[in-house]
């Protein structure tokens, strides 16, 4: 594994930090302890020396001082851990306590020099057997003359032993503490990262295409809980848009497959045997019709997908809407000729709105073309344009096959066509009204349908007037 998992890294970081803290902590304890013990030893040496000097003073510093007298007067001096020595002014031993036994502990040069100057000296020494001692040498002066040097010594063995034990305890306890805390850290990191693993697995399944997955971590408001809920929201939105895209492409391929089926079927049928020229002409005409339908579907699909991406450029400027209505009415007269559907104008008010002329013309032409397509023969399509409050109200009404109430909500959906419209002779693409709706909405307007089956349909477009926009 080139990159250790977060869990491993967390644990290692945690362990390293803890080890450093422990080492610092143990070191501090050791040195503080060592220092305290040393100070304690030195204090007891000083105490013993001053007691000894007091006793010596009572005896006038005579050479007849004996240890027994000292210990008699000062029972604490009898403690076995200390020994006393008194040196003459030349540095030679004159008297020493019994517990020193036969050990040779001469006065060091440094202590002697310091004593000559009247200073006391602390020394740590180690003798042949390796037993460490702490020594205090105090000069005893009489009228500025060095009379003798008192030395008190104590074995450092108990102190060293204690420090050794402390060190041992720290050396054993620290690794155990580190191991235990590493295990704890590993466990805690695992616990903390568990929801992350859950999210990872869910994301993996989603990547495999299963959009029904949701993260089922407890609904908490902590970091992981928030991540999970944001993640779930994201999946839900992905699921919706994926379903829409899938539906859209399924619909698109279905819509394209029908004209393909027809051109393929007609062409194959024509080629099965030799036919009259007239038959071939009919097949070619039919094929042309279907090819036109396919290219219309492709154009409209392209328009809608560009509209979705916000790539359609709109040039908004003041538009004389009533003029567009009149122009479209003239075009509509031609469109309706075959089926004797006449397009007439109802009340038309001079209205100016801010909009894109090309798109508004397309909107109106789509609505009128639709109206004519689904009109009964020899009926009228009526266009009206009036001001309704702060809005322009554009209406296109026909007397045709109509739309049932439950289908009215869906006719603006892409590729939706009513059952009757689907079987209708003049084929729409199922995208016209979706495009109309888009055009109305970019003009901040609304489009509504009102219809009765077999009676007719009215589309009402409301567009805001310029004054109401500002």
């Amino acid at each position, binding site marked *: 594994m080139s990159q250790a998992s977060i869990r491993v890294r967390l644990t290692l970081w945690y362990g390293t930090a803890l080890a450093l803290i422990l080492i610092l902590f143990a070191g501090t304890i050791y040195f503080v302890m060592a220092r305290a013990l040393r100070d304690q030893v030195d204090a007891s040496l000083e105490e013993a020396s001053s007691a000894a000097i007091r006793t010596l003073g009572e005896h006038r510093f005579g050479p007849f001082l004996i240890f027994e007298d000292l210990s008699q007067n000062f029972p604490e001096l009898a403690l076995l851990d200390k020994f006393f020595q008194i040196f003459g002014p030349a540095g030679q031993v004159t008297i020493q306590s019994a517990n020193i036994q036969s050990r040779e502990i001469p006065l060091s040069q440094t202590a002697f020099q310091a004593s000559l100057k009247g200073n006391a000296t602390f020394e740590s020494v180690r003798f042949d057997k390796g037993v460490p001692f702490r020594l205090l040498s105090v000069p005893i002066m009489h009228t500025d003359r060095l009379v003798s040097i008192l030395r008190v010594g104590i074995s450092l063995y108990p102190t060293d032993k204690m420090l050794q034990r402390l060190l041992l305890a720290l050396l054993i306890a620290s690794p155990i503490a580190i191991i235990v805390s590493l295990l704890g850290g590993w466990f805690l990191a695992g616990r903390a990262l568990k929801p992350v693993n859950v999210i990872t697995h869910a994301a993996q399944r989603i990547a495999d295409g299963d959009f029904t997955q949701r993260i089922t971590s407890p609904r908490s408001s902590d970091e992981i809980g928030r991540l999970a809920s944001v993640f779930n929201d994201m999946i839900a939105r992905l699921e919706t848009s994926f379903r829409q895209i899938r539906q859209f492409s399924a619909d698109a391929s*279905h819509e394209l497959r029908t004209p393909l089926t*027809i051109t393929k079927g007609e062409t*194959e049928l024509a080629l099965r045997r030799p036919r009259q020229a007239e038959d071939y002409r009919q097949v070619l005409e039919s094929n042309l019709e279907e090819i036109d339908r396919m290219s219309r579907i492709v154009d409209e699909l392209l328009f809608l997908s560009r509209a979705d991406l916000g790539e359609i450029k709109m040039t908004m400027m003041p538009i004389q809407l009533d003029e567009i209505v009149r122009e479209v009415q003239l075009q509509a007269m031609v469109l309706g000729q075959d089926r004797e559907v006449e397009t007439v104008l109802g009340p038309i008010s001079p209205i100016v709105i801010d909009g894109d002329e090309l798109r508004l013309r397309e909107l109106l032409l789509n609505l009128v073309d639709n109206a004519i397509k689904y009109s009964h023969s020899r009926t009228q399509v009526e266009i009206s344009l009036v001001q309704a409050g702060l809005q322009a109200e554009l209406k296109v009404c026909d007397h045709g096959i109509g739309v049932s109430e439950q289908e009215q909500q869906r006719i603006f959906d892409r590729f939706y066509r009513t059952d009757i419209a689907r079987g209708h002779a003049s084929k729409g693409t199922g995208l016209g009204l979706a495009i109309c709706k888009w055009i109305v909405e970019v003009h901040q307007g609304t489009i509504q349908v009102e219809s009765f089956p077999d009676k007719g349909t009215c589309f009402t477009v409301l567009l805001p007037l310029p004054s109401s926009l500002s």
Partner: protein
Amino acid sequence: MRILVVEDEPKVASFIRRALEEESYAVDVCADGQKGLDWAQSVDYDLIILDLMLPVIPGLELLKQLRRNGVKIPVVILTARSEVDQRVKGLDAGADDYLTKPFAIEELLARTRSLFRRAGGTPSGILQVDDLVLNPVTREVSRGEQRIELTTKEYALLEYLMRNAGRVLTRPMITEHVWDLDFDTFTNVIDVYISYLRNKIDRGREQSLIQTVRGSGYVMRTDV
């Protein structure tokens, strides 16, 4: 052989009808599920070609209702969606075969023949009565060594007679299986076509294969 085409897209229905008619089948077309269900239950069709996306009653529902009502007519489903589950649902609902749009005309015709063959019980599909042989694939008819040229309707009539050889076929039965809904039952067209067939098949032969059953209709004899 009479076929019902239930398809709401007029141009698709139109070329299917023409292709089948060229193969001398009688074809009826209807554009919604309700009509399709009514017709399928009232006429003894030999085959139904059914689109799945239909207004009023969806194709799958139509098929289920037909099977529930005990109608055993073979059904080929047409679906614009090539998705497997649509086909599986269709076959499970009782369809005998399926075609996905866009399909090849020849494939539609081959599947039609195959279903008739399955219904008729002849593995090769070639129909034979005595020395009269009819090949539905090549649409060739011969008696002995001699090839016989037939018009579309004559061929359709002969195929129906041969498929039901030995059975007495009444005029209404012949009407139902050889002619479509536009046929005017008050004419004697059947008798006219039978006499055309007899002229081409039986004239000058020792054995007459097409026999008149007085008061009932006609029979293709097998006991000669």
